[in-house]
């Protein structure tokens, strides 16, 4: 029951925030994170077209052998991706809280340009308090 990492991807597919918790994930360079986030954004868009039951919003959970990824897609196109161990039951509510912290710390920050990488201490502190 562990949270490995959090990514925030803007509506164009660019990674705006990335943080790893504990040492569950191998360390990657920031370029690799950017590539992975862009790939995930593309996959998410493809999965939203593949739905057999009409309109859908794209993959919600992607699970592997040792971890899973929960993706929260907001109505504005921002994606919050939480990487956790397989047995994490509260991932959705955690993502919802992350969204609230994002709305508070990032959106209300007048120095933050929307869709740009997030460089906010307040956001960092609150995320660590919530997830770290």
């Amino acid at each position, binding site marked *: 029951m562990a949270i490995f990492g959090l990514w925030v991807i803007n*509506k*164009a*597919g660019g990674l705006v925030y990335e943080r790893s918790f504990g040492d569950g994930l191998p360390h990657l360079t920031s370029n690799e994170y950017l590539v992975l986030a862009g790939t995930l954004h*593309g996959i998410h*868009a493809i999965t939203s077209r593949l739905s057999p039951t009409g309109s859908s919003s794209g993959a919600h959970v992607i699970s592997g052998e040792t971890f899973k990824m929960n993706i929260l897609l*907001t*109505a*504005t*196109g*921002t994606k919050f991706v939480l990487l956790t161990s397989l047995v994490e039951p509260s991932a959705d509510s955690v993502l*919802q809280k992350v*969204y*609230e912290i*994002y*709305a*508070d710390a990032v*959106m*209300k920050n007048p120095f933050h340009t*929307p869709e740009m990488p997030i460089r906010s201490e307040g956001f960092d502190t609150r995320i660590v308090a919530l997830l770290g």
Partner: protein
Amino acid sequence: MGYNIGTRLIEDFLARSNMGRCADFREVGEVVAKVGFKSFLNITPNVTHGAQPPASSPTRTSMPPPQVNAPGASFTLTFDENPLAEFVELPEEALEGGLWFSNVLCGVLRGALEMVQMQVTATFISDVLRGDEATEIRVTLVKYLEEEVPVGDD
């Protein structure tokens, strides 16, 4: 100014209210009035839904079925009280110059709805500060914005 506020406010609104997508523009009007304004300004404006967009053929005798989602659909918000204008009196030059004191609200509506893929125009119809009976804003849908996926580099 209002536009910038709106683009950021919508995230806060969505994060806290946890609402999904609205089914049609009529629902948008209801949600904006009853949930949005209530949570941010603690007022509940009345919503009146506008007439359907004009029929394309003037010779048609019967009204086409209400196109609630078509561009041209609109709703009007009528405010009993406006917290922004609570202690305000406009001077002569402002009244003559055509100042809408709470125009920032129009910008907020435009910015917020644009972030959820709806292009709208929001304008004041009347304003108590200018001597009219009530304060009204009309929001008209211009079009739905299709998600524009930027051209990939590889």
